[in-house]
């Protein structure tokens, strides 16, 4: 009798096991299928952001803290501090973090106001291969500053 119960228990557990991840709350999947998304090359994205404006060299204005040789490209920490004033009439409105050789190169756009105090941003990015990470800062006067760093991420960061 006990043996029968044991076998029943095992069978029930085997059937129920694939259902467990669905019952846990954090496993969300996109249910419907869609078409293959369009690739977004870096040049196109850069043109969308900057347009025809002049871009200044921001290497002296920005402090970048990005590992040069991360062990994995799946989550590369990117830390930026822009040393520009954050006052009422003179502040950084946006920080863009872009990659150059992923399929879709947009990581994040941070829209800031003077209430932020300083222009600082930390974000984790996916990098498919070794490539440049480009950071663009935009001020409310329409000035653009650009800084970049070469990151030797290994292949296969699912970009």
């Amino acid at each position, binding site marked *: 009798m006990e043996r029968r119960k044991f076998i029943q228990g095992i069978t029930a557990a085997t059937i129920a096991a694939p259902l467990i991840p669905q019952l846990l709350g954090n496993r969300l999947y996109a249910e419907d299928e869609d078409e293959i998304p369009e690739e977004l090359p870096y040049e196109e994205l850069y043109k969308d952001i900057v347009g025809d404006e002049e871009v200044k060299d921001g290497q002296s204005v920005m402090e970048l803290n990005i590992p040069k040789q991360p062990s994995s490209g799946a989550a590369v920490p990117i830390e930026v501090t822009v040393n520009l004033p954050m006052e009422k009439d003179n502040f950084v409105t946006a920080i863009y973090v872009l990659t150059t050789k992923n399929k879709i190169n947009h*990581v994040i756009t941070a829209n800031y106001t003077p209430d*932020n*105090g300083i222009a600082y941003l*930390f974000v984790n990015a996916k990098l498919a291969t070794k490539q440049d990470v480009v950071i663009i800062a935009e001020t409310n006067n329409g000035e653009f500053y650009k800084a970049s760093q070469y990151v030797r991420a290994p292949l296969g960061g699912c970009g």
Partner: protein
Amino acid sequence: MGKKFRAGVKILDKNYKVGDVVKIQTIIIHRMDTGFAKDKSTGKRLPQFYVTNESIYYNDQLICDFELGVSASHNPKIKFPVKITGPGTIKVVFEDNRGNKQEKSIKVTPQ
């Protein structure tokens, strides 16, 4: 549709006064599928599924917002500064491209 994903908000500085700039960290538990990768077990292409927007409200006033792309990592972590102007709450609203939304708030108690 309309499911909630997990997220967390935390103030990184412990002792802060009015006028200080504190750093706040948010973590979102999300798959962040690019739309190009394939499921290893079934071989099917995983559709694009990622967090698109994150807005920060300090006492119901919009401070800043973030537009994320698919190149942000799996379970994205974001840190940003906020200038403390007084006691209140900081509310963070997350949204993804399938209409799932999440709200988290944290109390601000300057010393």
